[in-house]
């Protein structure tokens, strides 16, 4: 009869309650007045008058009461939560194996997701560390109309005309690499620097920690030569000298004055990390003309200007240039790329694919947990039945099971975040240098928020379904009949989950297969030159001390002669652009007399080399002769070209003896082709052949050269010998690092290797988890069907029939999972197309091998429980329970 305090806070119920209470009061009060001799309606009026304003009282009480109910409900809820937590923790501690497996699955899944997301957050989502980074744009010239698919740099006249003629940019600043050597205050050292427009640092809104930035007047060639130091160089070379402003430095033989030091936090938005900056004076005096693409340009859009508006604006200028200077500027357009996209580059699709893969692993892990929990739930049917009988409500029991899962999720999340922190460091290595120079890969609030979100999602995935399933309405039936009849539906759910798992695993396996095949293809590519046993060392001859190129040639001859006399060195040759360097230079040439031919390549990639370089690198001579020591300065200019160039410039005829000219006037250099060499992949295995020309270094004016050294002794001995020889030739030359070619090659394929390894790792984890899922479901189903199997055996079924029945069940699950997974893989394969090399998304071997592997594993996983089913003793099975 007595009702508990109502937890229903709806306005109707509360008000109804209050009204009943007041009705009773008024009735009783009226009877009291009647007992005093009043008539009923008179008594009623008197009661109402004594009561006061009924409506006001009712609403006042209703407000108070609603608050009361809410407070109590919250308090009860917290008390129950505490109780649930205690029960949950006890339950988890009673099943340590389950708990450990669950925590590891969650921890690794969440950790991997968090680590990948920390990279995505840093690379793709966090704004660049500059004021209004969205206004910054990388400015390129567009040569696609001339058959060059890649964006190209600007020429000094282009830059000046675009800078002075545009209406869309508040700044347009150019930069180029600058490699000075420093010979004052310590050992000579080669530095990485940048020559930038005087306004560039101001455009990026950086505040110097000492002195000043460069400014526009520093671009004036009449001004003093000044440099601004990076924080790193200031600390490293100058011991954080706070009095450095105004001090002179000797850079490449001339004197410079330090005017400023940049903050430690500043990163240049470039593909290299400059240690010091000088003003770029070059475009102003125009020593380099149209057709000389030597500048990279960054601009800041005026507020409110869109990329499209800026593009139209610059295109207007470029169109006029094409009219005014058709020989150099025809068919050259404008190509603008937001700076963020420029620096993020091609990592976007790879990162997104990886995050997809790692999300799949977590998903599969969660499904496994869901299955484990379903099995646990089934095992606890009796316990829950008892609790239901003792009066626990369905909602209450669901909440208790959810709390237990929440505890798991929480602990798994903590573990995952810890692993994520560690993983984040590893992941940072896969980010391309260009973005790592600008953005740190680090955890921040958003990454933690993401981890928490993933944890909750995981918990929802693996926790809710089993909790609902465990607390079905017919628990009372479960109490009576044990676990037998309630099995069917749970079995179907579990089978569905296993199919989902298998499908996800198939997608990952296909992805991993495609990447693995790509990687193998990449490794199998014959670069065309030797890839071991040689090392590179860069040497630069500064203009100040080597004004005349003839002096450079003499120094080079001296250097080579001395190195060749060193026992530690077997052979040494010179090139100005080593293979796999990324850096390149190109010149425009045409077969003599055919300047207007339409099918000519836009330019040819040029190297200056010593005559022995081709032979040393193992590049095959196809026709004609090698370069020789007789090809000297002042003699006939000669060159080798590769087969690709011979085919493009001299189709159908022999190139040997022909002439490639760089201009129509007689002053332009002309090269007589003396030989043709095999085409090689100088820029890495995934790059196509390009047209190339090799000129004797004795006939060119290369100042920065690279020694190609084949050691006869240890690397250390070679380094010592090199240091000694360089010192003897010129004590002011910095001693370079020795860089083995295999390390360069390793770096060229490092990124694909890392992606492949990661995805393969994820795929293996997914496969194992999915196969465990199959095993779990089959084993459980067999143990639940013992009685049925016993009856079948007793009725004369052969054990092999039982084996077939169980294997058939597993086979159906595997087939279904494979089918769904392969279709999904075909659709999702498009996402990793850019990461593939030498295989298509429809790679037949991958699509054959994956089903075989998965099918075999699934059969093994079913076979173990099937064997157990075969050995069921009919008598024991039927009598059991």
């Amino acid at each position, binding site marked *: 009869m*007595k*009702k508990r305090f109502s937890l229903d806070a709806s306005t109707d119920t509360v008000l109804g309650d209050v009204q009943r209470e*007041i009705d*009773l*009061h008024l009735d*009783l009060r009226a009877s009291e007045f009647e007992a005093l001799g009043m008539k009923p309606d008179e008594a009623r009026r008197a009661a109402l008058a*004594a009561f006061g*304003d009924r409506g006001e009282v009712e609403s006042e009480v209703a407000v*108070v009461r609603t608050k*009361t109910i809410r407070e109590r409900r919250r308090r009860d809820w917290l008390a129950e939560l505490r109780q649930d937590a205690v029960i949950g923790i006890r339950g988890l501690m009673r099943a340590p194996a389950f708990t450990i497996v669950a925590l590891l699955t969650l921890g690794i899944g969440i950790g991997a997701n968090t680590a990948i997301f920390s990279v995505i957050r840093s690379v793709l989502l966090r704004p660049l560390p500059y004021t209004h980074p969205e206004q910054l744009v990388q400015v390129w010239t567009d040569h696609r109309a001339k058959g060059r698919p890649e964006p190209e740099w600007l020429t000094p006249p282009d830059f000046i005309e675009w800078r002075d003629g545009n209406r869309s940019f508040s700044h347009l600043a150019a930069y180029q690499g600058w490699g000075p050597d420093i010979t004052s205050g310590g050992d000579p050292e080669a530095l990485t620097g940048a020559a930038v427009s005087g306004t560039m640092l101001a455009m990026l809104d950086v505040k110097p920690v000492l002195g000043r930035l460069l400014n526009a007047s520093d671009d004036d060639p009449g001004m003093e030569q000044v440099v601004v130091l990076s924080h790193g160089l200031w600390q490293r070379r100058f011991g954080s000298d706070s009095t450095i402003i105004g001090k002179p430095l000797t850079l490449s033989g001339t004197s410079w004055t330090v005017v400023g030091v940049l903050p430690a936090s500043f990163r240049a938005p470039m593909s290299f990390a400059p240690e010091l900056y000088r003003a770029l004076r070059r475009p102003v005096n125009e020593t380099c003309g149209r057709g000389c693409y030597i500048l990279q340009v960054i601009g800041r859009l005026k507020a409110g200007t869109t990329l499209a508006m800026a593009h139209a604006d610059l295109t207007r200028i470029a169109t006029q240039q094409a009219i005014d200077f058709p020989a150099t500027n025809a068919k050259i357009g404008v190509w603008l790329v937001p700076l963020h996209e420029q620096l993020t580059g091609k990592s976007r699709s790879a990162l997104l694919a990886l995050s997809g893969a790692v999300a799949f692993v977590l998903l599969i892990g969660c499904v496994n947990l869901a299955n484990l929990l379903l099995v646990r739930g089934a095992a606890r049917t009796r316990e829950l039945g008892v609790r239901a009988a003792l009066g626990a409500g369905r909602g209450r029991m669901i909440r208790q099971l959810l709390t237990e899962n929440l505890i798991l999720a929480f602990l798994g999340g903590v573990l995952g975040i810890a692993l994520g922190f560690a993983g984040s460091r590893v992941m940072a290595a896969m980010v391309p240098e260009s973005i790592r120079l600008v953005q740190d890969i680090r955890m921040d609030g958003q990454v933690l928020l993401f981890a928490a979100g993933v944890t909750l999602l995981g918990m929802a995935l693996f926790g809710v379904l089993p909790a609902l399933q465990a607390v079905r309405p017919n628990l009372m039936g479960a109490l009576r009949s044990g676990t037998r009849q309630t099995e069917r539906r749970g079995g179907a759910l579990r089978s569905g989950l296993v199919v989902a798992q298998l499908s996800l695993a198939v997608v990952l396996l296909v992805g991993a297969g495609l990447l693995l095949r790509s990687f193998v293809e990449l490794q199998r590519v014959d670069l065309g030159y030797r890839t071991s046993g040689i090392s590179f060392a860069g040497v630069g001859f500064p203009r100040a001390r080597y004004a005349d190129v003839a002096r450079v040639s003499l120094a080079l001859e001296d250097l080579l002669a001395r190195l060749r006399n060193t026992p530690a060195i077997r052979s040494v040759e010179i090139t100005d652009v080593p293979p796999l360097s990324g850096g390149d230079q190109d010149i425009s040439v045409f077969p003599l007399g055919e300047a207007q031919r339409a099918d000519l390549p836009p330019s040819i990639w040029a190297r200056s080399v010593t005559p022995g370089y081709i032979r040393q690198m193992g590049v095959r001579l196809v026709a004609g002769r090698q370069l020789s020591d007789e090809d000297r300065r002042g003699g006939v200019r000669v060159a080798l070209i590769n087969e690709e160039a011979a085919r493009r410039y001299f189709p159908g005829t022999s190139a040997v003896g022909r002439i490639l000219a760089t201009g129509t006037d007689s002053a332009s250099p002309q090269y007589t082709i003396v030989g043709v060499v095999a085409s090689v992949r100088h820029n890495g295995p995934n790059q196509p052949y390009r047209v190339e020309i090799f000129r004797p270094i004795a006939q060119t004016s290369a100042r920065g050269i690279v020694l190609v050294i084949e050691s006869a002794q240890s690397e250390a001995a070679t380094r010592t010998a090199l240091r000694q020889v360089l010192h003897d030739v010129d004590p002011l030359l910095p001693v370079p690092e020795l860089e083995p070619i295999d390390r360069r090659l390793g770096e060229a394929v490092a990124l694909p290797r890392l992606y492949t390894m990661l995805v393969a790792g994820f795929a293996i984890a997914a496969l194992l988890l999915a196969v465990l899922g199959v095993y779990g479901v089959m084993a459980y189903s067999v143990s639940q069907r013992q009685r049925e199997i016993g009856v079948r055996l007793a009725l004369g079924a052969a054990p092999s029939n039982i084996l077939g029945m169980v294997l058939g069940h597993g086979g159906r699950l595997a087939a279904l999972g494979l089918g769904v997974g392969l279709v999904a893989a075909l659709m999702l394969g498009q996402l990793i197309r850019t990461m593939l090399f030498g295989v298509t998304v429809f790679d037949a071997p991958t699509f054959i091998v994956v089903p075989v592997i998965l099918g075999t594993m699934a059969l093994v996983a079913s076979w173990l429980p099937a064997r157990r089913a075969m050995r069921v003793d009919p008598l024991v099975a039927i009598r059991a329970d």
Partner: protein
Amino acid sequence: MAGSDLYTGSLDLIILKSLTFGPMHGYAIGRWIRQTTSEELAVQEGALYPALHRLERKGFLAEEWGMTDTNREAKFYRLTTDGITHLKTELARWHRYARVMTTALSAAPTQG
């Protein structure tokens, strides 16, 4: 409370006191107050109910539905342990307050 000559808190105190005699429903509490104060306190009877529910919210009262002597369903209020403790402190406070006020207000004026 409008239309009442009760000092703040005194209605709460009377309600708590009334329930020391055992659980009662709202009307019975009101009747007890009227009788023990000889109907000298001009209180709107309706004011009792918000007071009851506020006390319940503070945890000093608990409610239960039950039957009256005339077999009607009614909400019965009873003191909780917290309510009893609160009543004790409030009574002590009230007595001290009444004593101080009485002394102060009955002092003879000093001639100036």
